[in-house]
């Protein structure tokens, strides 16, 4: 009995000691390691197959794309393609490829490699969630010679170059694609970029190391070679943990810092704050136009007027976000002509509701029409600050006599389920992107994200014409300006603020710049302080 107990004690002792010992192991960080915090742990990180924006933060520097979008000029510049030609009918894109490029595994980059990438993306067995749709009406690719390839479309598709400039269509080594196949390639990624992919442990970390052979960087990079040797990306999904991770020096760079925390950190000499505007849609709520009471334009207008946007944005986002009045952000869409500022006018809102027949009797908390109470079901996603904004919307709408039922969906799945059921009046969702064709899936009658349920043949016609106007950029500008106006006139959406990613960086780290998409850092330009 006694020996038994002693043995148990010994066992506990060994386990404890080994736990503590492993806890005290010195970290093997070389001087030139950067710890970059990610804020979402995607379920998969194959850029050809998965849709997360987070995966681009590390992988944007593992891959090069055929073309790059210059964030300053808004023009496309050469990448892996030295130059390209678009046929006059907009159906054939010919790319002349660089001849000096090798993948990290030594495989030469050529037209064959491009074709294999496209085939991998379009293979239905691989279930591509984003890249395949980004190729639009692509019919096939034709290899003209070893370094020339043609993309043949079924109909003109203006966003094609924008698609090809994104990491989702980055060029991967065909050798590695063949070797690993769709579900395992994400752990063994091989590109041509300034950083090599070393390892990925899901939910834990991604490691990159610099590619010493890199000599084909695009003009948007300041440096020709990376200087930080090793970059480790850890996940900080819980927003509350991010500022603490920076203060403990667990992370050197971290994005999506909650606004009040970002201000606090920025006031210290140890950190600097860079707010990065993300092009795309603002944080917004769509009104369901297929169900009462939001099928009535006056009710939708009243809902817009009742919200004090300025104070909402100031409370939730501090001074870092511009108030939005448009279905597209200012960043990246500077060519949208000036829109009327959104008014805060609760009196006007009350009048509109009364015109629509919703009357507030004295002693009653909520408005009624024919004994039916005015109820707005408001659904918000859990990420970003949607939940906080939605709570303030609720307070504003209750103020004019509306009974607001707020639900925060715990994930995208639930959000989409509520949406498919149609049982909502206002619902929050926003996507990012650098091409205005983004609007098509939200406002075209048959759009996949047409959560307003609005259907207008004129809007449909303009969206389709703009999507096909590859060779007429001025016509596109004109059309999208009209579309934006139509969306605002019909009060289809309540935009709140332009998305700004608050990135906090440890003092001394220099050169942090972001790609045109906003989320993705140009890792090649980052420099650590000299020791």
């Amino acid at each position, binding site marked *: 009995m*006694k020996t*038994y*107990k002693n043995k148990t004690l010994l066992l*506990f002792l060994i*386990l*404890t000691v080994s*736990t*503590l010992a*492993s*806890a*005290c*192991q010195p*970290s093997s*960080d070389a001087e030139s390691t950067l710890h970059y915090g990610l804020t979402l*742990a995607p*379920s*998969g990180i194959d850029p050809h197959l*998965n849709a997360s924006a987070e995966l681009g933060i590390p992988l944007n520097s593992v891959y090069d794309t055929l073309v790059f979008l210059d964030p300053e000029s808004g023009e496309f510049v050469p990448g892996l393609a030295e130059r390209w030609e678009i046929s006059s009918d907009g159906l054939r894109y010919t790319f002349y490829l660089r001849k000096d490029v090798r993948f990290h595994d030594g495989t030469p980059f050529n037209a064959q490699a491009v074709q294999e990438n496209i085939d991998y993306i379009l293979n*239905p067995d691989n*279930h591509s*969630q984003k890249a395949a749709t980004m190729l639009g009406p692509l019919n096939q690719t034709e290899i003209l010679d070893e370094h020339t390839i043609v993309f043949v479309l079924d109909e003109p598709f203006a966003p094609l170059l924008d698609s090809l400039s994104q990491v989702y269509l980055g060029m991967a080594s065909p050798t590695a694609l063949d070797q690993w196949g*769709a*579900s*395992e390639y994400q752990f063994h990624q091989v590109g041509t970029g300034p950083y090599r992919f070393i390892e990925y*442990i*899901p*939910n*834990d970390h991604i490691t990159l190391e610099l590619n010493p052979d890199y000599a084909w960087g695009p003009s948007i990079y300041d440096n020709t070679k990376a200087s930080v040797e090793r970059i480790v990306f850890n*996940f*900080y*999904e*819980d927003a*509350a*943990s991010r500022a*603490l*991770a920076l*203060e*403990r*020096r*667990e992370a050197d760079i971290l994005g999506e810092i909650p606004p009040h925390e970002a201000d606090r950190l920025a006031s210290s000499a140890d950190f600097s704050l860079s707010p990065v505007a993300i092009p795309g849609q603002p944080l917004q709520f769509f009104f369901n136009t297929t169900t009462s009471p939001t099928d009535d334009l006056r009710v939708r207008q009243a809902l817009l007027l009742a919200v004090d946007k300025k104070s909402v944005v100031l409370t939730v986002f501090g001074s870092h976000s511009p108030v939005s009045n448009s279905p597209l952000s200012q960043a990246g869409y500077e060519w949208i002509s000036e829109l009327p500022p959104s008014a805060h006018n609760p009196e006007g809102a009350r009048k509109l509701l009364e015109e629509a027949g919703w009357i507030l009797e004295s002693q009653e908390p909520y408005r009624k029409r024919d004994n039916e109470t005015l109820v707005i079901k408001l659904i918000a996603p859990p990420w970003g600050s949607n939940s906080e904004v939605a709570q303030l919307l609720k307070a504003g709408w209750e103020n004019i006599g509306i009974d607001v039922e707020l639900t925060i969906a*715990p*994930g*995208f*799945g*639930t959000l*989409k*389920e509520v*949406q*498919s059921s149609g049982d909502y009046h206002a619902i929050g969702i926003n996507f990012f992107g650098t091409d205005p064709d983004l609007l098509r899936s939200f406002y075209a009658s048959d759009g*996949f994200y047409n959560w307003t349920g609005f259907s207008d043949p004129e809007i449909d016609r303009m969206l389709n014409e703009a999507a096909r106007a590859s060779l007429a950029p001025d016509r596109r500008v004109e059309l999208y300006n009209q579309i934006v106006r139509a969306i605002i006139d019909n009060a289809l959406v309540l935009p709140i603020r332009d998305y700004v990613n608050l990135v906090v960086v440890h003092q001394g780290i220099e050169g942090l710049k972001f790609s045109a998409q906003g989320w993705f850092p140009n890792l090649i330009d980052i420099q650590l302080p000299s020791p």
Partner: protein
Amino acid sequence: MVSKSHRHTATLAVARRLLEGIGTAWAAVTFAFFALRFASGDPVASLLSQGLASPEQAEEIRISLGLNAPLWLQYLRFLANLLQGDLGTSLYTHRSVSQIILEQFPSTAALAVSGLILALIFGFTLGITAAWLRKRTSGMIAAAIAALATSIPVAFTGILSLLIVGRLQQGHVTSNDLFIRLFLPALVLGFASSGPIARVIHSGLSESLRSPFILAARARGIHRGSRLLGHALRPSLAPVISLIALEAAFLFSGTVVTETVFSRPGLGRLLVKSILDGDYPITLGLVALAAILYTISHVVADLLTLMIDPRLRRAE
């Protein structure tokens, strides 16, 4: 010396427990399968509604998951695959569920094992102090801490510990990752699970300290020797071991919150994510795993109890 017939009954008892364990595991896995099927509806619907599969692809996935077959056949297939360690593939990443679970397992195992060790250390210390020094302030404080341990939500202790460590470390630039990443969460988890252990030891020890044989020993002058403590503790060991089996299950749900608060990878967060995303094969795999682990820990606890207390063996 153990006689031959004694050994025989012992073997029989062990065999019986093992058989019972297999029965419970089967029942639990069956319950999990049907409960999940009734709670979550069509597993492919959420994939379809998110646009991650076209109707044709969804139909294909239904077929490949075997969802078109009658429920009883699906259940039999699930059992057969489970026996081979095959839990199917994730709806979203099309990767093997067993592999996804295996990747996250070490992190949770490290947390749970360190948490359990700390729970035992705290539980024994608090329980023994509370019973042995029952009339002194230190004993009462120990009892109060043990009561607190059962009452404070893990979320709250986790947050508090982060706040305190954050305050202490301010200005000191240290990157002792593992202290924050493993030891602190284990401490929080261990503290939360130490309450029940302390309580069982406290009450068991108090009782045996009042027993005539201990009172006699004390009268003979062996006042508070460690030998005496050892003897007095022995009766509480069996309930503590069964409790640890229960705690093993608690640790599984405790890690859900701990991993969230401390941003740790692991099965707890995988579970929450799979439930919220509607990735049904992962959820089912994790629930089955939880059920099996629970049963195993119970059987092991039973066997350990048999080893410790020969009286139970004879009672068979």
